[in-house]
């Protein structure tokens, strides 16, 4: 009893943690760097927030690592230098995304009103005020384009994934490489391909289905690679159990493996849709523009969100650019929602 009591008065020591003095010195260096950076901004060619930030980071890094070099020696000085550098790198990664989100929301909400989602632009010129016209036709067009691309690419993508995980034939390695290569095909090349293979020789006119074909080419690799990862996670026990019960491979895959991987496969499809929903270049070549509702995917130019944004951006009037930002906001929200759904399905445990 006495021994335990004697321990209770002693606080555990943590020599590796920064002492109050160390913390005070760090804060001091921090404040001094801000002041010094401000001075640099005043006397040199650096100016504005960007110059302030850059010179602050540079000065802070220099002083802080100099101090740890004097106090602790070179090993710890390098360590603290890298500490700051990785934090700065992460910060630089996050700046663009924060800026993009901020700009799109702050510039995009002005053009939104209820009719924006139902009306089309057929009676509007670029100079019309923001409470007229809308992108209903573009939303419909994007829906049609994406649905057709979905119908084409999902079977092919999932079959490819099944080949890579279930059959594992002689072509496994080349096909895995080809899928990888396909995911690197520039979107404009996919557009040119459909142009050269179908639009010029056969149809000679823009239509939604041609755009969908190009989008399908871009979507297949995303679906195939994500689906392959998901199918690889299915435990082999399930496959062996299916075969041991007398099932053929077809029954095993169709009744056991695919249902077990269902939520993951849905994730794969949704990530594919998110990849193509905002794809612009092939749409510009193939689907044509169109500022009115078009319900027929087989003929006539079909509007779409990327095309609406592109046109509004190119028109260049203030109202038109405001419409472009609003269109971007709508597109961004769609990508957000798709991504959230994919996360929801992706986080569910495989096999349940």
């Amino acid at each position, binding site marked *: 009893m006495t021994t335990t009591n004697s321990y209770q008065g002693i606080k555990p020591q943590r020599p590796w943690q920064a002492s109050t003095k160390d913390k005070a010195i760090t804060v001091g260096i921090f404040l001094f760097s801000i002041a010094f950076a401000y001075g640099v901004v005043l006397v040199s060619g650096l100016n504005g927030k960007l*110059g302030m930030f850059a010179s602050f980071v540079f000065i802070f890094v220099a002083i802080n690592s100099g101090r740890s070099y004097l106090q602790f020696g070179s090993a710890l000085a390098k360590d603290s230098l890298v500490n700051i550098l990785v934090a700065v*790198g*992460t910060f630089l990664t996050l700046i*663009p995304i924060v800026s993009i989100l901020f700009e799109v929301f702050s510039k995009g909400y002005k053009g939104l009103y209820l009719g924006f989602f139902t009306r089309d632009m057929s009676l509007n010129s670029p100079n019309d005020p923001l409470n007229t016209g809308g992108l209903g036709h573009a939303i419909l067009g994007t829906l049609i384009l994406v649905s057709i691309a979905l119908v084409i690419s999902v079977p092919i993508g999932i079959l490819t994934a099944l080949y890579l995980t279930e059959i594992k034939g002689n*072509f496994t390695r080349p096909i895995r490489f*080809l899928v990888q290569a396909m995911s690197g095909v520039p979107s404009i090349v996919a557009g040119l391909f459909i142009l*050269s293979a179908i639009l010029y020789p056969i149809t000679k006119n823009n239509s939604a289905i041609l755009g969908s074909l190009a989008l399908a080419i871009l979507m297949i690799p995303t679906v*195939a690679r994500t689906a392959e990862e998901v199918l690889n996670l299915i435990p082999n026990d399930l496959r062996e159990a299916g075969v041991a019960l007398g099932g053929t*491979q077809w029954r095993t895959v169709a009744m056991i493996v695919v249902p077990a991987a269902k939520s993951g496969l849905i994730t794969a499809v949704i990530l594919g849709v998110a990849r193509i929903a905002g794809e*612009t270049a092939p749409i510009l070549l193939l689907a044509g523009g169109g500022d009115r509702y078009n319900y027929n995917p087989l003929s006539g130019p079909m509007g779409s969100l990327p095309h609406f944004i592109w046109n509004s951006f190119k028109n260049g009037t203030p109202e038109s650019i405001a419409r472009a930002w609003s269109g971007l906001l709508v597109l961004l929200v769609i990508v957000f929602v798709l991504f959230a759904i994919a996360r929801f399905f992706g986080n569910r445990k495989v096999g349940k």
Partner: protein
Amino acid sequence: MSTTETTYVIPEKRELTTKPRFSDKVFRGVVTGGGLSSLLILGLIFGFLLYQGFDIFKSQGLGFITTSRWDITYDEAGNVLTSDFGLAAMLIGTILCSFIAVLIAVPISVASALYLSFYAPEWLKKPMVTIIDLMAAFPSILFGIWAYFILMPSGAYWAKLLNKYLGFLPFFKNEQRFFDSSPFIAALILAVMIIPIVTSISREVFAQAPLDRIQAAYALGATRWAMIRAVVIPHGRNGVIGGAMLGLGRAMGETVAVYTVLNIVFAINWQVLFGVGGNVASLILLKFAEANAYEVKGLMAAGLVLFVLTLIVNFASDLLIRSFGAKGK
């Protein structure tokens, strides 16, 4: 105790065979067919672009990739009188912009991948990974318009600074004082676009660094940086290079985001801060709008060149990532 007579019915001998059944044959056939579709599609892309662009390759020869001009003249009836296509400026511009983009993006991506793998507190890790993955899914038109309105002024600001203090280097010269729409700004937006891709690949590579060696390094008294230098970097170097190559391939094929910020001119320009540049993908979009049938053939040929270029880069990246996978085990 009487014995009852029991009759044993011996079933007919089952036929044991390893031959796949009919349903399996169909299944394997369909799945293999689906699997080979990627080969078919890539082959068709190559074939059709070659077929359509063949006239151009024949009339221009090697000059198509070594000269830089894009001239076409018509008579009144719209027939082509003379045409001269050469992609050199566009190709050099594409490669230049993508390389600068990778040079900017890789250090930042590796730093943030290291932070996410070894420095970030647990509660911060998951949301940050989600945000970076989300950024990788942003459409390129979003990046393009953001770059035009927001990034361009900041980019021009940095370009002026670089020119002021490092202007004696030939790369950073800019006599005309025209800083907007330069290859440097195009490279900045490409860097922003590939940072999420390179970051997530680097993070996956770092996550596979062997835990026993990490702990051994710590046990020997290594600081975090010493551990990273001794264990993580030698282990993941090839994977990171492969990720960078993948980013390079993406950057080369990017169309819309480059189109909005780059001033496309048919002249080879190595001064990255000067607002004159080239890009194959953007050229196709730029010329397509008013091109007639013959000029479109030239664009198809340009598309084929771009396609082959990205295939080569992707192939190299695949080899590097795979060699990493073999070593990692």
